[in-house]
């Protein structure tokens, strides 16, 4: 099997890779702290609005019968979807021994952890009495009351908490050899921090033996998990008897959409990061090209899903279903549907151009559109279907409130702030896997398994 090795930088030595990553971990300057301060301000504004919501109740939001799920649940599904690409790149592509993942997987995996941490906030924010969030967990209590395990919401609790735990374990395991590497050059409190996190790792044969097996098995466990999690999230809707939700296509449709939006978010973060941190030698056009191809493929899959969903509605000739979809396309929120089609189906077609796939600025702009489109997709499905219920007399369209908008902006800031902090204090590029990947490619070139373009 011959692999085309194109635009890959095989020049860096192991020491060069270390130097590039160690340089990122130098103490950051004033501009970085201004950026963090700006994000923290937005987070605090969001937290303040949530405090106000807890004090005054959900009346401060735009929620009301029948649209009881709107922006908060949209944000939840959006962020869970964003999380998917990290596990795709780190676990599924690891099992397939895909070499281009090495430079980008740590950033993608980090994004996954912070995206799930952001997603996990929203079901709690959505609660009228958030201090009772733990009622979803099965715990012994004096009245023997337990959650209903037949409910998709309970499945979701288990799926999301398992996903967060497994992603964190996988991420932490992969981080250990790299943290041990930076421990050797760090000074002061950073050295103490890295020494604790590395747990005494020294790369002995015994350590690598058990590490490699555990890493492989964690990847094997994470792979079906990643497919199950967004399927379970989709069943929150598909299990309900609501036109626009009750559809068997939802699980694969949501998984494809999750990978689509997640990979777009990876590029939204990576493109500025490689520019700001000077990582062009490590994150090359080869990586951008491959990530862009994943976006293009998943865009085509979800475009197909949109068509099939509409076709099934027409084919059923169910009047309520037909009305729901008619309102989805041409109702008061119809513009959102067309924004979603533009951003998710039409704009990504530009990625058929090889030149655009390796051009950071156009690629960055396309990923922003994809992020916007996927947020609207979630909103159209969730709130749009609720607004147009069985009885036209019940129809009501949600109107945004300052609280919901502010908390949404605060959540985006929270996510970017966590990522920015990690990128400056922990190795955001996996030195170990990058060295391993380069070694493999050099051997493959030498032995004729791959050929340079």
């Amino acid at each position: 099997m011959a692999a085309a090795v194109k635009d890959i930088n095989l020049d860096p030595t192991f020491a060069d890779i270390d130097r590039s990553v160690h340089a990122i971990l130098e103490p950051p300057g004033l501009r970085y702290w201004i950026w963090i301060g700006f994000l923290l301000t937005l987070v605090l504004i969001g937290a303040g609005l949530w405090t106000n919501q807890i004090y005054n109740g959900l009346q401060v939001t735009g929620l009301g019968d029948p649209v009881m799920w709107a922006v908060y649940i949209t944000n939840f599904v959006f962020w869970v979807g964003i999380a998917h690409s990290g596990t795709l790149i780190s676990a599924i592509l690891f099992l397939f021994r895909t070499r281009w993942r090495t430079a980008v997987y740590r950033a993608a995996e980090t994004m996954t952890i912070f995206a799930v941490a952001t997603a996990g906030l929203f079901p709690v924010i959505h609660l009228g009495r958030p201090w009772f969030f733990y009622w979803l967990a099965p715990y012994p209590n004096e009245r023997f009351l337990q959650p209903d395990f037949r409910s998709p919401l309970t499945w979701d609790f288990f799926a999301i908490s398992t996903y967060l735990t497994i992603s964190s374990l996988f991420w932490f395991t992969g981080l250990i050899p790299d943290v041990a590497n930076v421990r050797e050059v760090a000074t002061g409190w950073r050295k103490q921090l890295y020494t604790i996190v590395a747990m005494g790792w020294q790369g002995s044969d015994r350590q690598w033996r058990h590490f490699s097996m555990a890493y492989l098995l964690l990847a094997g466990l994470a792979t079906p998990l990643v497919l199950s999690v967004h399927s379970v999230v989709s069943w929150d809707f598909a299990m309900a008897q609501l036109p626009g939700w009750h559809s068997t296509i939802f699980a694969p449709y949501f998984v494809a959409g999750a990978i689509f939006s997640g990979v777009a978010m990876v590029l939204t973060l990576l493109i500025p990061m490689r520019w700001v941190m000077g990582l062009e030698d490590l994150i090359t056009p080869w990586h951008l090209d491959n990530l862009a191809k994943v976006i293009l493929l998943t865009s085509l899959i979800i475009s197909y899903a949109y068509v099939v969903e509409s076709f099934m509605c027409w084919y059923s000739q169910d009047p309520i279903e037909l009305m729901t979809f008619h309102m989805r396309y041409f109702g008061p929120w119809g513009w959102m549907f067309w924004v979603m089609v533009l951003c998710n189906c039409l704009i990504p077609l530009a990625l058929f151009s090889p030149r655009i796939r390796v051009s950071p600025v156009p690629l960055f702009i396309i990923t922003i559109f994809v992020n916007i489109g996927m947020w609207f997709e979630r909103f159209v499905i969730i709130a749009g279907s609720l607004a147009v219920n069985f009885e036209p007399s019940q129809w009501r369209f949600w109107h945004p409130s300052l609280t919901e908008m502010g908390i949404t902006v605060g959540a985006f800031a929270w996510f970017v702030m966590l990522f920015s902090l990690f990128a400056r204090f922990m190795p955001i590029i996996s030195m170990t896997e990058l060295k391993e990947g380069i070694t493999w490619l050099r051997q493959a070139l030498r032995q004729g398994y791959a050929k340079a373009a």
Partner: protein
Amino acid sequence: MNGEVELVGAFAFTDEERLVHCIEQLQAAHAQFRVFSPIPSEHINRAIYKRSSFVRWFVLLGGITGIITAFVMTIGTSLEWNLVTGGKPIASIPPYMIIAFELMVLFGGISALTSWVLLANLPTFEPLSGYRSRFSSDEFGLVVHCGEGDAPRFEAMLREAGAQEITREAA
């Protein structure tokens, strides 16, 4: 004088094949040794260990425990508070399989982490003898534990395998 010594050989990372050959020679000579490397190497692993890590059995055990826990929890609590909802059976196996799958992955993953950490003798804050910081960066290290009388023979073996630097330390 017949004390114990440790020979620490440092190898450039390009010398993996010669290093593996040296490991085979050391095994044939029944020498005690340890390898440090900045990246995982399947060749080195296979040369040293004939069997796979036991981590896989712990993961299997964890996964089975997760499945059993899930069914005991879901069926047990349903029978204890036997309220019919949605016309479904009290113990509804198909939806409980979703919980069982999630707990299988959860318990299996936690077992993977705990077992590899413990089997690798981590956490430890006592450095292994012969370790150099550059073995976490860009060199392989091969540390041979031997009697002082055998040291010249093993030193020659390391040199022949391409060691760039060999140091002798009291064990």
